[in-house]
């Protein structure tokens, strides 16, 4: 019992973080996109429109739970959770400060990427179970895209892993006390942000949603809180890839030049989340400015450009580290 209670509290805290993130990110997305689009964004519900998301959540919760007659009931019912649960599990190994994680895994990074790669199964389930042609095309696209972009994503994190010599996210961050990995691993970082953008289905890679083509694709037949879960998972994924980028390339909870400052260290989690939010802002920026790439171009880009580059970078960095640095 004593061993279980702290873990339960931590998990609940993480769930709280996820939900708060969802609410904050939806508001932030609307405001950021609004400013990029020379409009104002929500400004009617509450001061500065802050309660807009709350109103939306209430709306989603009180909506009738509809299921298409011809849907595959079981799959349709379970798909939002298959999308949502891995996205929550991925929060568990994230280290927000020294010794501040739900659970410290030696293979935290591996665990995180493994659960993230379960999401396309849920998306495909949602697309298939809806028994709608648009949803099916969206689901198929999502599956093809995520398979293609998991590979460069995995390869791009290998550079920081090699430098830190660990898959434990805390150790990777601790290794960046004096030098953020973004500087030596710049190429890996570029590949990471592209692959992360694609992995979270953000414009210009929002194939599975494709507003103007598939009209929200796989989520087409979902309404109410089921849609809410799909939506929440998307935002929580955004946070995860941004947090992972922070941990791998931007020194996690460390501030530059203040790595030993006790005040800066005590503010670790705040710094970590602030860095992640800056990353999310960049993702939203791309979303506001770019058109959508075509699906065949997307796949060609992954297989012909990203994977060869990331693979050769892994080899090059391995050689550099073995032959030049470790002597």
């Amino acid at each position: 019992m004593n061993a279980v209670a702290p873990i339960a509290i931590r998990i609940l805290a993480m769930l709280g973080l996820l939900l708060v993130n969802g609410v904050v990110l939806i508001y932030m997305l609307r405001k950021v996109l609004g400013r990029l689009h020379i409009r104002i964004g929500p400004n009617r519900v509450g001061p500065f429109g802050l309660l807009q998301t709350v109103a939306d959540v209430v709306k989603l919760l009180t909506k009738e739970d509809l299921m298409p007659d011809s849907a595959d009931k079981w799959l349709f019912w379970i798909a939002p959770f298959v999308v949502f649960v891995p996205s929550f599990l991925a929060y568990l190994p994230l280290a927000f400060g020294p010794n501040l994680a739900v659970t410290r895994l030696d293979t935290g990074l591996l665990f995180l990427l493994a659960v993230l790669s379960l999401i396309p199964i849920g998306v495909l389930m949602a697309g298939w179970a809806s028994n709608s042609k648009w949803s099916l095309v969206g689901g198929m696209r999502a599956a093809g895209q995520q398979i293609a972009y998991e590979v460069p994503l995995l390869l791009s994190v290998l550079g920081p892993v090699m430098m830190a010599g660990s898959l434990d996210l805390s150790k990777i961050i601790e290794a960046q006390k004096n030098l953020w990995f973004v500087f030596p691993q710049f190429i890996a970082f570029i590949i990471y942000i592209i692959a992360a953008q694609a992995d979270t289905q953000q414009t210009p890679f929002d194939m599975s949603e494709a507003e103007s083509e598939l009209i929200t694709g796989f989520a087409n037949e979902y309404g109410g809180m089921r849609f809410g879960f799909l939506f929440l998972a998307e935002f929580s994924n955004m946070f995860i890839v941004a947090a992972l980028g922070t941990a791998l390339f931007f020194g996690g909870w460390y501030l530059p030049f203040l790595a030993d400052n006790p005040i800066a260290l005590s503010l670790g989690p705040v710094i970590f989340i602030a860095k992640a939010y800056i990353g999310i802002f960049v993702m939203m920026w791309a979303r506001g400015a770019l058109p959508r790439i075509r699906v065949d171009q997307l796949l060609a880009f992954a297989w012909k450009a990203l994977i060869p580059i990331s693979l050769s970078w892994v080899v090059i960095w391995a050689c550099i580290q073995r032959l030049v640095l470790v002597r």
Partner: protein
Amino acid sequence: MSEPRLDVHAQPGPCWSVPKGLRRVPKGLDELATEHLVLNMGPQHPSTHGVLHVLLELDGEEVQAAEASVGYLHRGIEKLAESRKYHQVGTLLDRSDYLAGLHTEAAFAMATERLAEIEVPRKAEWIRALTMELCRLASHYVWAGTYGMDAGAMAPFLYIMRDREMILDILEAITGGRMMFNYIRPGGVFADLPAGIDQPIRAFLSTFETYLAEMDALLGGNEIFQARMHGVGVISRETAMAFGLAGGTLRASGVDFDVRRDMPYAAYPELDFDVPVATGGDCWDRYVVRIEEMRQAARMIRQLVDGMPEGDFTAKVPKVLRPPAGEMYAAVESPRGELGIHIVSDGSATPYRMRVRSPAYYNLAICDEALAGSLIADAVVILGSLDIVLGEIDR
């Protein structure tokens, strides 16, 4: 016309290029071949620009065949016109091409004037050209924005809405309406230009270049957008002629024809402007041609404001116009191309028959051919590049 004549009955060549990327099922693997999926795109779909319904036959993501089905917005405008007096028809025609109502009004007014042999004062011709060019800009703005949305870019749409708003304010000051004008009437225009209207027009022109360049950099300068447009939906010169395409869609395929220059009307013979032509015939060329058309429109507006003559804004026209029996066709270059109105009069106060030659309808006719062989994403972009307005297609 300097246009060399082409044999329009010649067999049109393949008018699309099969995009690289997804391959067809190779021969010999027939037992693996799957059923084609028939997908109803529209009539409620964000990228069909209204209530167009396109049947897509899909093999995976690849469109094997497409069939456009129109008529969801049919309001019987041509038939209704037969029971309206001549000066009342404009209200109907505004609702035909709702993005550029003035052009349809002008075509009708010109046909009526030619039939009734009414001499239009010079100032009225200039006001017509001025309002029509403003209207063309407003319409092209909407097209450019929605084109960006078709390609997945949201921002340009809101950028153009800011600029279009300025034009709509100007048009409201001149005509009293933002989109439903009923301003150009047989004999001239409904009212004189309000005093000092050149101020807001000049203010608009002063920001026009900057804002358009900004929008163009955001959309046309984007590498993803270019990759989406180049070589997509190629319409050859011959096919364009055979299908009777019009406007920017026609000129992007290399046919140098513009009603404003080749069948002059209103103040256009006195204006200095170029007709942009491209030769590629793909979606990118249609984008380039229309953006350049916007620059030319602004150039004309500047000339029209500077040289606006004095005089009457309308000819003396009887309250109830009874043109002599006969028939007449008049065409204008609407934002979508040659828009013609054919009137048959039996000498009474209402037209015996009115027919609209709707450019968007002819442009849409190519869609069955242009969409086949493309991907779903391309299909959306090609439809957008044709600049269709369903109000005008269905009437």
